[in-house]
């Protein structure tokens, strides 16, 4: 199959959306890459739901603190001016709609912006973690995922077949081949990866895409 852009490039593209002063939660896995690409002139505060506002870069192994991790359990550092809070406060700020943006992974996103990202169909048990609260609570939800599954199946679908994390919450989908905005009128294709056409993206997307009049190539 034709190649899209690399994951770190998707992360760079998402980082472009972050504004100075934003409070942002990055989901476990791919989305954590986004933190690496925030330009130094922007001060973005990263929230980790296990009780940190102001996550800093990953430490060198010799500087790991046994009591300090992100929500994925990876050792982290904190920036000067960080705050530690309990789980109650951490999710109060999520549920109370104080977070500007969350970047989450996705198994499926529907035309209506429903997000499924916690359990595969047929698996008996899955972990929701903080995903349901964060997907429902942050003011803007970006989904970062591959456009189709390894087997080439649609991940952007008319209706999610996997159990939902949250209903009607996704703002924009960033994939290896496209940037797609979720609107009340349906999905709008805003950007395509270099070398890709809108028709090729549509062929890998179940719902009908409206092609933006300002359709562009993904650029950094």
């Amino acid at each position: 199959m034709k190649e899209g852009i690399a994951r770190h490039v998707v992360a760079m593209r998402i980082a472009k959306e972050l504004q100075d002063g934003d409070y942002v939660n990055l989901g476990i896995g791919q989305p954590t890459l986004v933190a690496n690409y925030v330009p130094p002139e922007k001060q973005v505060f990263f929230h980790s739901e296990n009780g940190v506002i102001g996550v800093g870069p990953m430490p060198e192994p010799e500087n790991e603190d046994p009591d300090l991790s992100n929500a994925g359990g990876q050792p982290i550092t904190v920036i000067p001016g960080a705050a530690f809070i309990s789980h109650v406060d951490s999710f109060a700020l999520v549920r109370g709609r104080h977070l500007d943006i969350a970047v989450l992974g996705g198994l499926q996103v529907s035309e209506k912006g429903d997000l499924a990202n916690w359990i595969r169909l047929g698996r008996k048990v899955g972990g929701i973690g903080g995903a349901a609260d964060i997907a429902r609570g942050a003011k803007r939800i970006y989904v970062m995922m591959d456009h189709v599954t390894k087997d080439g199946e649609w991940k952007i679908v008319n209706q999610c077949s996997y159990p939902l994390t949250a209903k009607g919450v996704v703002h924009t989908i960033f994939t290896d081949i496209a940037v797609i905005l979720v609107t009340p009128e349906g999905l709008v294709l805003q950007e395509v990866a270099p070398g890709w056409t809108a028709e090729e993206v549509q062929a890998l997307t179940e719902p009908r895409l409206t092609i933006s009049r300002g359709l562009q190539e993904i650029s950094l």
Partner: protein
Amino acid sequence: MAGRPVYHDPLDAIADIPDGAVIMTGGFAGRGVPVQLILALRERGVKGITLITNDTSGGWGGRVDASYLIEAKQVKKVIVSWPVPASTAVITPLEQQLLAGELELEVVPQGTLAERIRAAGAGIGAFYTPTGVGTPFAQGKEVRTINGIEQILEYSLAADYALVHAHKADAYGNLVYRRTARNFNPPMATAATVTIAEVDEVVPAGSLDPESIVTPGIYVHRLVVKKG
């Protein structure tokens, strides 16, 4: 008021926990886990536990967590947000027991879990939250539109015992935490009939800054000093 009893052997601190107890254990991703209290529960072999904890996936670089109690088949029901690892490479004891019908599992969104615990400690019976609306987490729950936002009814969650971890306690049981080892420990400390805090150090009353206390000693009944 007298100070809180300080135990040096965790087995003594949990000696009265009966089979069938509802037990909360603090901790997240292996940080802030009351490790010695969990190992003591395992050693004593308390059975039929209803376990309320954030994660039972294990695998945090060999750190002890509440999954040790499931592995030892001491748990009949788990209320948790992150029951199993994301990877399906390993079938955990939790999954085996679940499939064998030996274990009951309730998966709760993490923020809802924290708030249900907080509510119990604060004397609130239930609350409405937008988290989980339109998802499997809303199944069988009352839905109401409040201020134009659909919300579901969630009940508070109390325990007989809360096993928490803190960095320091003073003699009255006031607790301070360290970094992300705080996590679920403060709400859990408020939500149990008996709260037992495992701490790195007990210091004299008056040596912690009153402005810095996260969990006041009114919630804390027993202290255990971590060995070694």
